[in-house]
């Protein structure tokens, strides 16, 4: 497992994409919540408004020593995390040549206890590459972004993805 080489300013670019209602925005919220306490500069940008009506949704996350634009330039994403199989091709141009694609088939969805937690499982998978984010940050971010009755299920999904 090789992490892509980051830019001169040490900026890591991540794009999370999928369809409205799949939890793209929730996943990006959890990710930035996990990054923020590291003290690195982090920016998240998205277009939402019709996000629950099944259309394409995309969220950009960038972090590093200094980040200017909140949008990942096309072809410069280090990681592309896609929640819907039919959105992989639509978003592939965002990924840089040696970038890492994390798609629904990156985990064995049939073994996922709750299929609704695919977004969190794929975050778990992504977490393996992002060594600068301590595991504790991820746990706390998950807890901050879900009501208590969903904590256990999402922690499970995260672990499942991380170990996939």
């Amino acid at each position: 497992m090789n992490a892509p080489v980051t830019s001169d300013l040490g900026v890591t670019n991540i794009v999370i994409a999928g369809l409205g209602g799949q939890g793209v925005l929730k996943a990006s919220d959890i990710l930035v919540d996990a990054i923020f306490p590291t003290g690195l500069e982090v920016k998240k940008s998205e277009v939402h408004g019709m996000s629950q009506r099944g259309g394409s949704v995309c969220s950009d996350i960038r972090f590093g020593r200094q980040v200017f634009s909140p949008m990942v330039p096309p072809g410069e994403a280090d990681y592309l995390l896609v929640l819907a199989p039919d959105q992989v091709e639509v978003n592939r141009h965002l990924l840089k040549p040696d970038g890492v694609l994390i798609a629904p088939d990156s985990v064995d969805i049939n073994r996922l206890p709750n299929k609704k937690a695919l977004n969190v499982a794929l975050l778990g998978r992504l977490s393996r590459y992002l060594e600068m984010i301590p595991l504790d940050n991820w746990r706390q971010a998950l807890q901050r972004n879900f009501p208590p009755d969903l904590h256990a299920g999402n922690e499970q999904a995260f672990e499942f993805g991380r170990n996939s």
Partner: protein
Amino acid sequence: MNDTQRLLLSGDEAIALGALHSGVQLGAGYPGTPSTEILEYFSELGGNAQWSPNEKVALEVAIGAAFGGGRALATMKHVGLNVAADPLFTAAYTGVSGGLVIISADDPGMASSQNEQDNRHYAVAAGVPMLEPSDSQEAYDFTRAAYELSERFHIPVMLRVTTRVCHSKTAVTPRPPLPPSQPHFTRDIKSRVMIPAYARPAHVKLRAKLKEIEQFNESSPLNVEIRGGSELGIISSGISYMHAREAAPGASFLKLSTTYPLPLQKIAAFARSVKRCVVVEEGDPYLVDAIRAAGVAVEGKPEMYRFGELNVARVRRILAGDTSPEPPKPAGKPPQLCDACPYRLVFQVIRKMDLIVAGDIGCYTLGVLSPFEAMDTCVCMGAAITVGLGLRKVLPPEQARRVISVIGDSTFVHSGITGVVDMAYNRPPTGHVVVILDNYTTAMTGRQEHPGTGRLLNHEPARKLVIEDICRAAGVDRVYVVEPRAGSDEFETRLRECLDSGETAVIVARRPCILLLKDLKKLEITNQPQNQSQAACECSCNQ
């Protein structure tokens, strides 16, 4: 400041916090992407916030609060400022006693809008100072600066943001909050009553004020110069500045934050200090035209970059003078009506009957897409009814009889009511049929309350506006309420009946948004006592 005081906020949240820390006593607006979350977050933080029926109402309420010496916030998306333009232009003349900040949240690239107008022109046209933040920290700081400016010069101030500022999360370090002002009305008839005799001197006064503000902006610390090399200088504002900083790390920058009135002396001095000076801005060539008109030689962007949002890649192309065709973006999947949405049933019927449909702004605009393709026009909020009336009035009778208007509940309250009044008053010869799709919420922007839901912005109970009663009171011949349900042909039967009658008719197709169902149950349980007393009242009043 220690690290624990840093917050990760969206631009909208940062504006809300900035308003709260400015001691704002009243926030009013109408939901519209990307501005919606400002008032929601302001309310969550304990601010006094309200959804108004539309943006004009919201701004006028805010103007009243500021006439009374309070600090007021009015929020809206770019097209919302069109609706509120009438009070805006005159409020610039009257000025304000307290602080008044108007948010214009523009949508370059039209992520969820019907046009990509550049509202920087409004600041110039109305004569109100404008500030443009480029991230959440600035959104917070500039909101506070906007109130200072507003109170210092007694003038409404426009804070112009765009989707990528509103919906981007970046770090914010807040500062200690200010105490609220002490509202108190002081009579000043000549300043606040804009009859021509008082408006003429008010215009002269406004222009003098703007001259003063221009001088103030010349030395404003909000306009920042970042010295790099002297080969390339970039003048930019808002989110474009962030793209440009990244695209040209070695260049010198003049980051403009007070973008009306412009600090033209500062701009001229900056342009002189570099060999090549390029203005990088999203949307219309507002800055470049103004700077050139002042006799300063600067480069602008090629016309092809007027369309859509900018990003780092596009700014690199602008700086390289590259006008070759851009790589096409793969088409994403468009949004669609939810699987169990009650509107689906309505559009199936409309499609089957092959009608001419004047549509409106909301979830139901998605009725234009496959498999329904049951919408023929969509102009602006409220236009469904009035555009339908216009069609009815000029088409040959056999076509006119096929015209219907389709509008949602929140939009009906926003600006559909006056259309219904027009229908009853200036009745087309063939009559007309309006279908009001009432799903109990402002669904498209994320399920906000409105007067027809019977709940306030914070979901507390309120007096409920009864849509069918308004239509009856306007003098519409036939008013029906139906529930669109699978297996029921009630809607179709009523629609045919109304079309055949040649009368004016309103059919309220009422069933809750499926995304609201869970919340609705909770809300109704919480609000029950008030609902019961109100229901009892309605029974007797409706006899």
